[in-house]
């Protein structure tokens, strides 16, 4: 066994993920918040824009659900652990910072995918046809990786106050909803709005989900997937680099 080798570090990252799920995600309050938050957002927009069909709104709901659940807790985990001294315990263990971050990402990916699948099932129950199941699965997995990387990116500034990254997280997530074609079709956005939406990974995910359910899309499907993959890789590399730099400042 080479403790520093990739297989062993992946195994240890999985241990971190299991710990996160047990300690943070598998709590009733978190699960309920993860489901209720996007549902209430959806209902609010559904009631306020009755001219939009369910086939348009449900893909948006799937997008918001994944964004909110995959970033629900990850920004604050290091702040909590730093405050309780457990982060120092982890740092003194033979696991790299990258593997720790990867483990935290795995936990938020699993939580995000799990809750999002419930939303997909609800969409199917409302009679939406699933036209491109494989695209939907691929896009959910890809976007879950992307959003969890964003969540961990928000956790990078060293602080022992959990509310700081959570506030930052909300300040970023809510504007993303309004510029990503969730409740307003991209075709109806002004050119500056479209330019903004092109910067949001949620735009490409929602476009892919909409394609999976309705066959309609704004950007070419391969472009959606490619751009989402590139953003995911960039955010993942960025978050690992930043955590490696900021981790000693948490100690």
């Amino acid at each position, binding site marked *: 066994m080479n403790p520093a080798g990739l297989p062993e570090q992946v195994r240890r990252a999985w241990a971190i993920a299991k710990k996160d799920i047990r300690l943070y995600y598998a709590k009733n309050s978190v699960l309920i918040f993860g489901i209720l938050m996007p549902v209430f957002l959806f209902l609010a927009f559904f009631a306020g824009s009755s001219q939009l069909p369910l086939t348009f709104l449900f893909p948006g709901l799937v997008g918001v659900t994944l964004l909110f659940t995959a970033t629900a807790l990850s920004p604050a985990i290091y702040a909590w652990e730093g405050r309780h001294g457990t982060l120092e315990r982890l740092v*003194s263990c033979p696991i790299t910072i990258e593997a720790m971050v990867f483990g935290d990402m795995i936990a938020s990916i699993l939580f995000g995918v799990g809750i999002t699948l419930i939303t997909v099932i609800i969409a199917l129950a409302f009679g939406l046809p699933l036209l491109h199941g494989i695209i939907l699965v691929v896009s959910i997995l890809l976007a879950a990786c992307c959003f969890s990387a964003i969540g961990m990116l928000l956790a990078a500034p060293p602080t022992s106050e959990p509310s700081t990254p959570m506030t930052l997280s909300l300040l970023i997530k809510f504007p993303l909803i309004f510029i990503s074609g969730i409740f307003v079709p991209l075709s109806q956005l002004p050119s500056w709005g479209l330019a903004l939406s092109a910067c949001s990974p949620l735009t490409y995910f929602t476009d892919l989900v909409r394609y999976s359910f309705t066959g309609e899309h704004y950007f070419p499907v391969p472009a959606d997937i490619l751009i989402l993959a590139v953003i995911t890789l960039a955010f993942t590399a960025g978050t690992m680099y930043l955590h490696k730099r900021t981790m000693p400042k948490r100690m």
Partner: protein
Amino acid sequence: MNAIEAHHLRKSFGPVTAVSDVSITVREGEIFGFLGPNGAGKTTTTRMLNGVIPPDAGTAIILGHDIRSEPVLAKQGFGVVPETSNAYVDLTAWQNLLLMGELYGLARSRAVQRSSDLLATLGLLERKDQKVQAYSKGMKQRLVLAMALLHEPALLFLDEPTSGLDVQSTHRILSLLRDLNRQGTTIFLTTHNMDEANQLCHRVGIILAGKIVATDAPEKLKTAIEQVHTIEVSFDRDVSGDDLAALTGVTRAERTGDKWHITTPDKDATIRALVSFTEKNGTAIVTLNTLAPTLDEAFLRLTQEASP
């Protein structure tokens, strides 16, 4: 091979220099005590050795691996017991131990076996499925010790492991440390407790204002600080103070009750002279003690001398 080789470690936090120049060598199989007053740089040094914070300068080789360039390989070989328990309080003791098993790459069957053995040794087996938040301070400290020992480390870092614990927990932990050392585990013990350091440590290092001011065996440190030694001796009959004061090396002889306190710069020569004196005068020594300074006194003297 040395278990720890640290050279010229330095660490500043903003304008404050916590450690200015620390070099430590800890031999394999040794219990090394790391002493110093509050704020001297003990914890910062230990954290640099643990790979928790990077030094601004200097190197630390732990069990043959540079803690900066090969942190995983170095950390795989040691365990850490912090002063304050940092087990996950929302997990049970058993879950905490299995998590450590996974983080150290132990096979599950091995982790289960080691966890059971350690919990039994440390008196926690019956409460292994209870969340740690319900544990007393002593139980938490014993659990953290078990977590540090799960992977059978060659080197153990302990920071005030018995601070604030009851006599039973203290005794249990110290006894385990002695056993571990007998089995070959190197121990790096940061402590304020001079008695503990005196009893346990083969060598101690004293840090003050971020610098090591002394490193030696406790007995040598104690005697090194005293240029003049005191010998307490009693005889089976009255002897003359003037006769005692005239013996080789004796600078002063004072009577205290039925004992004499003899001051000398050369203990060995004076004891030999006392033996000759009794033979010549037909008297016998009833008791003879060399009154060495305590490690407390040595610590205070060394830290006072080195204070700017």
